[in-house]
């Protein structure tokens, strides 16, 4: 009985030690943290906007914003979806690369590149508040 109780105590002690290393909790954050994270996100959105209006993204001077002002008609909330022209389910990033190759006569971006994440962040940000509708055509 004593043995068992001391065993439970030891487990509790180990758990307590585990969640309190040097006083910082995993899910504890402050208003200042939120502000900083929002700032980090918005700086990527702003970089995405810079790329969106850039004449340098492709090779012919055409910018994303020429056909998609405010990233309208990109429908980020509908991806992934069956892109009927490609005959398979694709992500929004695949369509960005399609546009880079075709109307912009440029080269594809790496799917995990800083530029691709920024373009995606901008398009999603302009579509904020719209209900998710994956698969919708």
């Amino acid at each position, binding site marked *: 009985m004593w043995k068992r109780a001391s065993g439970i105590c030891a487990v509790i002690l180990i758990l307590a030690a585990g969640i309190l290393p040097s006083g910082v909790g995993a899910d504890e954050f402050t208003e200042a943290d939120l502000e900083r994270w929002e700032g980090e996100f918005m700086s990527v959105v702003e970089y995405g906007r810079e790329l969106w209006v850039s004449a340098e993204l492709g090779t012919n001077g055409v910018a994303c914003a020429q056909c998609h002002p405010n990233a309208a008609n990109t429908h980020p909330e509908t991806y992934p979806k069956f892109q009927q022209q490609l005959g398979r389910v694709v992500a929004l990033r695949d369509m960005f690369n399609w546009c880079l190759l075709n109307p912009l006569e440029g080269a594809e971006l790496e799917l995990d590149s800083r530029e691709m994440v920024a373009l995606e962040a901008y398009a999603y940000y302009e579509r904020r*508040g719209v209900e998710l509708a994956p698969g919708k055509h």
Partner: protein
Amino acid sequence: MPESLNRMNRRDFLKASGAIALAGTLPVSMVELAFADSSKNFTFAYISDAHIQHISGNSFVRNWDRGLIRAVAETNLLDPKPDFVMFGGDLAQLGSKAELDHGAEIMSKLNFKTRYVMGEHDYYLDLGEYWSELFGPQHYSFDHKGVHFVVLNSILTYDEWTFDRWPTAKQRMLEMAGLDNPNGSPFMVGEEQRKWLADDLAKVKKDTPVFVVSHSPIQKIYKGWNFWTEDAEQVQALLQPFDKATVLYGHVHQIQYNQIGNITFNSVMATAWPWPYPRSYAQAESHMPKLTVPMNRADPFFERDATGWQLIDVGTGRASLRYQLYNNTNRTVAFNTTTGQPEDSMYQAEDKRVPPQNQY
């Protein structure tokens, strides 16, 4: 056979077969519509928003070139022939001589008298100087078979923005060229031109049909993308006294139509690329005319989809726009004398609309 001759024959053959293929696709809807007093009827073609875009040296964006070349070629094949052609503005993308010259060269292949409207992409580099050398005055009027036409330069804006804000002309052009650029400025006809318009219209009898041709809509739809004219109400007030007034405008790269009092509004398509309907931008309110049945959502995999040009029948002083849409069923938006407003001949009723017209 020497190789050069062989090549030339092949090129001629391709040219000839291209013309046949085009003629083969010309829709039968181009036959002129019949009106009560047919002696007053006429037809003109309307091409707009070509956005010829210079890359460098002698290269231009192929996609936009093809749009204009196709509209010109198809217009030349029209039978019966149109009385004249209007070009609705934005021949160039960034207003350079290279772009205006290249656009003018493509337009020079038209077999018909062509009149031009100023667009913001033609204007804000040199304030229309080179454009005027090529095409003449920036606002003017003329009469044709009993209809009074007025062409306005409706893409002017506040003097401070035009003259004092930007360090270079090139930057001014770039700032105005971005449709969604918050540094842009609202379009307007301006006091001086409105005065000219009032004087011009004073000489016209109130039962004469008046057609105003402008680049911007002369109504307020969405300010964020300049689907807007700042002094729209003042211009409309000059048109309301006429029994039949019609405003034809470009800029919006999509089908729109509306009726405000006595004034009928019709937009024309771009040859370059389509634009989303303002409702597709979730962060701002817009005021698309309720009457408008949208064009189909663009399919980017068809390069010319949701672009095109139009043939306009004028019968008894009202316009009937026959949209020549490259990858969709052609549409006709005509003034309905019974309801007193412009209506689509096929899709106007709610239950006649098709899923691709659902824009979101």
